[in-house]
């Protein structure tokens, strides 16, 4: 019998040496003459255990990790192909508490299947949502998505079904589905993990969207920092076309749809949906004024659905299990599950998909295990470079769109970056302004000029030049940027800046005072 060994192709695992581990395993298989097959799966998202190698044994999957190339020979010696004991044994991966405590709806297959095997995808419940959608009217598909309560996972939290309904109701001979895969927020990697670990779910979600609104062409706008995701997507798209999942007749139906991957060119602002559309059209990635909405006049002026990767990847399960099933998870107006990404100085960094409602403290302390450095957690930035810094005092905030907004923060794309007590919050506030300056598209003044002035003000505070006056100026500047900017880049940069100032005022005091206080 052929034994199947899994070594992730996920770039997080590759960054920790998974490629060398896979090579070493392939070489041992050859020299020992063993009948085994090597599958390059996605990552389970337990990055402190990556590279995590799994073996399909008669008793189920058995995991080992973190494995280095040097460990490989000893794994064979310990008969890991039959689940033999080894210092790196982790047992049944599904029983590792970090994984066992999750509710994996969107990430159900990631780390389990071969990402580019359509048979594997179907064997694990893939395409059921699409098959159901093909029997439904467009209005019914849109209603299911609306009723599920799914909101845009890219950060804005806009109801996905409402977007789709607008496009459905807008007449047009040519409509587009655009997937925003420009995952540029620091601390986020869930889009990347899905695209590398289960690309078919994104293809399925986009195809359902196409049937729902009557679109025939789809684009995945992918950031250029993700070459491994590009490879996985293009491999999966080729398989999907060959199998008739995409093309002139989707699964033998009257619907035609195809998807193309387009690479960005290193501009953060292209994650903003209208800048993304301009970039796809071949222009500078500058933000458009709204209205018109992309749903009315989007890509090349055509009605366009533009959704984040995770939003689209959550659609197949909604169609498969029904709106009520999905909506049953979560709380308030935040329904379903959210793939939380724990990053930065965390002991257990990784992906944790759960229903909305865990508190920030539970996520950081219990799931993330506090800091990797072992020092106290001082601040966590939630929602990327435009998200607020939260102090411990706000750790009781439940992970929910409205609860975070009420605390002057945002959950954004659900990335959480943990900082220990060595962090200098004035430096972080300065960086937020610096980043806005580097990435501003330049179209509106509050963002383009405000960011540069913000860095200067932060530098004056750091040098102790009229600090009280400068702090007042910083607040005023943030106010102008928040209300005067055209998009979230300039409009949300005040979140990290003002939260740092409000919750960590001691870091903004002049140095002599700070030194005296210490």
């Amino acid at each position, binding site marked *: 019998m052929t034994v199947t060994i899994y070594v992730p192709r996920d*770039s*997080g695992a*590759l*960054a*920790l040496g998974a490629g060398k581990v896979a090579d070493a395993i392939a070489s041992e298989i050859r020299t020992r003459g063993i009948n085994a097959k090597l599958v390059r799966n996605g990552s389970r*998202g337990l*990055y402190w255990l*990556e590279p995590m190698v799994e073996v399909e044994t008669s008793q189920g999957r058995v995991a080992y990790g973190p494995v280095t190339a040097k460990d490989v020979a000893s794994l064979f010696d310990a008969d890991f192909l039959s689940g033999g004991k080894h210092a790196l044994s982790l047992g049944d991966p599904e029983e590792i508490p970090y994984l066992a405590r999750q509710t994996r709806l969107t990430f159900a297959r990631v780390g389990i299947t071969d990402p580019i095997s359509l048979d594997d995808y179907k064997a694990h419940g893939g395409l059921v949502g699409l098959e159901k959608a093909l029997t439904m009217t467009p209005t019914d598909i849109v209603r299911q998505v609306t009723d599920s309560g799914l909101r845009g996972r890219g950060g804005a939290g806009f109801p996905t079904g409402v977007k789709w309904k607008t496009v459905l109701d807008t007449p047009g001979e040519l409509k587009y589905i655009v997937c925003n895969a420009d*995952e*540029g*927020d*620091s*601390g*986020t*990697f869930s*889009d*990347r993990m899905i695209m590398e670990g289960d690309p078919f779910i994104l293809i399925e979600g986009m195809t359902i969207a196409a049937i729902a609104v009557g679109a025939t*062409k789809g684009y995945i706008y992918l950031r*250029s*920092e*993700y*070459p*491994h995701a590009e490879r996985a997507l293009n491999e999966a798209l080729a398989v999907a076309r060959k199998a008739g999942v995409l093309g002139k007749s989707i699964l033998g139906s009257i619907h035609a749809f195809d998807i193309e991957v*387009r*690479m*960005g*060119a*290193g*501009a953060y602002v292209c994650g903003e949906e209208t800048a993304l559309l301009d*970039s*796809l*059209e*071949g*222009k*500078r*990635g500058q933000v458009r004024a709204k209205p018109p909405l992309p749903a009315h006049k989007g890509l*090349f002026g055509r009605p366009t659905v533009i959704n984040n990767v995770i939003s689209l990847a959550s659609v197949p399960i909604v169609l498969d299990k029904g709106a009520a099933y999905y909506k049953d998870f979560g709380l308030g107006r935040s329904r379903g599950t959210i793939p939380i*990404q*724990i*990053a*930065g*100085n*965390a002991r257990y*960094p*990784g*992906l944790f998909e759960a229903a909305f409602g865990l508190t920030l403290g539970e996520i950081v302390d219990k799931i993330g295990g506090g800091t990797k450095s072992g020092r106290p957690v001082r601040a966590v*930035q939630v929602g990327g*470079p435009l998200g607020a810094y939260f102090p411990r005092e706000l750790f009781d905030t439940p992970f929910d769109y409205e609860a975070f907004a009420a605390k002057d923060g945002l959950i954004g794309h659900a*990335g959480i*970056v*943990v*900082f*220990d007590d060595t*962090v200098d919050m004035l430096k*972080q506030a300065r*960086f937020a302004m610096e*980043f806005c300056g*580097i*990435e501003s*598209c330049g179209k509106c003044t509050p963002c383009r000029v405000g960011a540069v002035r913000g860095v200067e003000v932060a530098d004056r505070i750091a040098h102790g030049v009229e600090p009280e006056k400068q702090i007042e100026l910083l607040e005023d500047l943030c106010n102008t940027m928040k209300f005067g900017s055209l998009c979230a880049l300039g409009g949300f940069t005040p979140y990290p800046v003002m939260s740092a100032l409000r919750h960590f005022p001691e870091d903004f005091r002049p140095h002599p005072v700070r030194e005296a206080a210490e």
Partner: protein
Amino acid sequence: MKMQSEDVGITARATSIVDEMKKLEGPLLPILHEIQNEFGYVPREALPVIASGLNLSRADVYGVVSFYHDYRDQPAGRHVLKVCRAESCQAMGGDEMADRLRDALGVDWHETSKDGAVTLEPVYCLGLCACSPSAMLDGEVIGRLDEDRIGEIVAEVRQ
């Protein structure tokens, strides 16, 4: 004379790329990617070719090229090292690792070393935030940058 023949070569190759790709919807970024892929940068000589092929002004094309961080106006070193400078990597001592790399390689951000061995570029997130600090050397991802890994990177680019 040599320069002139190089110019002709660039124009000819850029023309064939434009002709092949201009049928795409929104062809400009894919064309620029292909040109950079071909030459290692976007040569000035290619801009009028693109402009006339796509019926744009040269200023339009230049405006797009200069907007995006990825496009270079001159060739990079033999190796390209991108080091993440964003928050998750900052939280794990990324700034210090970046300083050490700059010292060890003798280059600052956006610079190419004098021997042409390496170009150092800042990047704002590689999506490797669960193994910060991170970097990318010639497209290969590197996680948990530390002294040892910095040593390996320096050795590789110096080879």
